[in-house]
């Protein structure tokens, strides 16, 4: 269970998060919306423990995540708005180094994940030659490999075609179905039904 209590965050002169709070239980998804610059990315980065808020608390399983950030991070997958891929490595190598840092992963699992997101056709091409949508798919493949309880996704469906949007929706509902949680900044509604979705709208 993710509990967030009155987060206040300042970035320079701007009061970005003004008392954001919510409770998310197992199997639930929080959809964060709001205009550009409303603080969606800041909220996700604060939840991930990358930014320290001025006040407020993020609790995971009843404990302040700051008490043991590394344990919290081991159970968390964060996907920023740019896929963290190296242009000079192939999609498969990227995935191997990214996931391998966290958990043991076999070549078979990598191949299965790449196939799942429809990336098997370009898995062995250098990422610099891939389109933005193809890169996004590689990042999604990483998500399918991380069996963690909490997903923090920043615009996961950007640059994806209709079929890609359905893929994001399917991955999210799988995560929720197995009792996982997700906080996603989403501009557009994803196709299909996701299950339990709460909404949080940030004002500019």
């Amino acid at each position, binding site marked *: 269970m993710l509990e967030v209590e009155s987060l206040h965050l300042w970035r320079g002169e701007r009061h970005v998060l003004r008392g954001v709070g919510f409770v998310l239980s197992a199997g639930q998804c929080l959809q964060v919306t709001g205009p550009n610059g409303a603080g969606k990315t800041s909220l996700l980065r604060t939840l991930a423990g990358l930014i320290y808020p001025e006040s407020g608390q993020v609790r995971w*399983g009843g404990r302040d995540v700051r008490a043991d950030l590394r344990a919290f991070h081991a159970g968390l997958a964060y996907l920023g708005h740019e896929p963290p891929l190296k242009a000079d490595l192939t999609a498969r190598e990227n995935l191997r180094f990214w996931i391998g840092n966290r958990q043991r992963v076999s070549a078979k699992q990598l191949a299965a994940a790449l196939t799942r997101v429809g990336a098997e056709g370009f898995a062995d091409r250098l990422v610099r030659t891939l389109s933005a949508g193809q890169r996004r798919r590689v990042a999604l493949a990483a998500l399918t490999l991380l*069996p963690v309880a909490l997903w923090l996704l920043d615009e996961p469906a950007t640059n994806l075609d209709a079929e890609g949007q359905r893929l994001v929706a399917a991955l999210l509902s799988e995560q929720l179905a197995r009792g996982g949680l997700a906080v996603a900044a989403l501009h557009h509604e994803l196709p299909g039904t996701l299950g339990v979705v709460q909404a949080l709208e940030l004002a500019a």
Partner: protein
Amino acid sequence: MSSSSIRVGLPVNEELDGGQAGALAAVALALRRDLTLAFRRPAQLLQPLAFFALVTMLFPLAISPQLAQLRLVAPGALWAGALLASLLALDFLFRDDAQDGTLEQYLLSGQSLTALLFAKTAAHWLLTGLPLALMTPLAAVSLGAPASALAAIVAAVLLGTLTLSLLGSIGAGLTLNIRRSSALLSLLTLPLSLPVLIFGARATQQAIAGAAVLAPLELLAALAVLGVTLAPLAAAAAVRISLE
């Protein structure tokens, strides 16, 4: 709390969960990744080496081919060259990884950021400091050093560049999100590197003169040990602040 206890109650795909990667495995993988990446872009590696070669080979041409005079300036030329070459190489230590989000994922990997950054710094030294040390005999000979001095000079450069890479990792961590930060990075790192410059030049001078080199070498080794133990901690703290 261990990571497994955080996943309690979540019926994950058993087949997928190969267990958390050990710290050593993660470090080895980070090291391999950086080496793989570097060899995809060899030009970036050659730049500091070419700089070092040029500096040390231009000195004999500019000063005088007389051995006695060359030997007088050899330690200074060699070490100023090595210091500036490793500064040149520092620029790409963390920059790319910060820009594409790799460092963020390192921070969120549940592994020790200190260990991962140490792996990055080690890779950086293997790609810049080690080749620099391997080129040193050539540079030293062109500056008039006798063959008997070469072993000590190479040892000094090996130890010195290791410390420089480690010191540089702190500066590089602090200047991550400052655009065109090369000048600032040099300003931060150069004063801290002066002991390396002084002891390194001293060791080289002693070696050329045929005197005992153990004392300056031991001091360089002490600096390297200090760097290995403390610099990754400081670099990790710096990166955490920079990424916020």
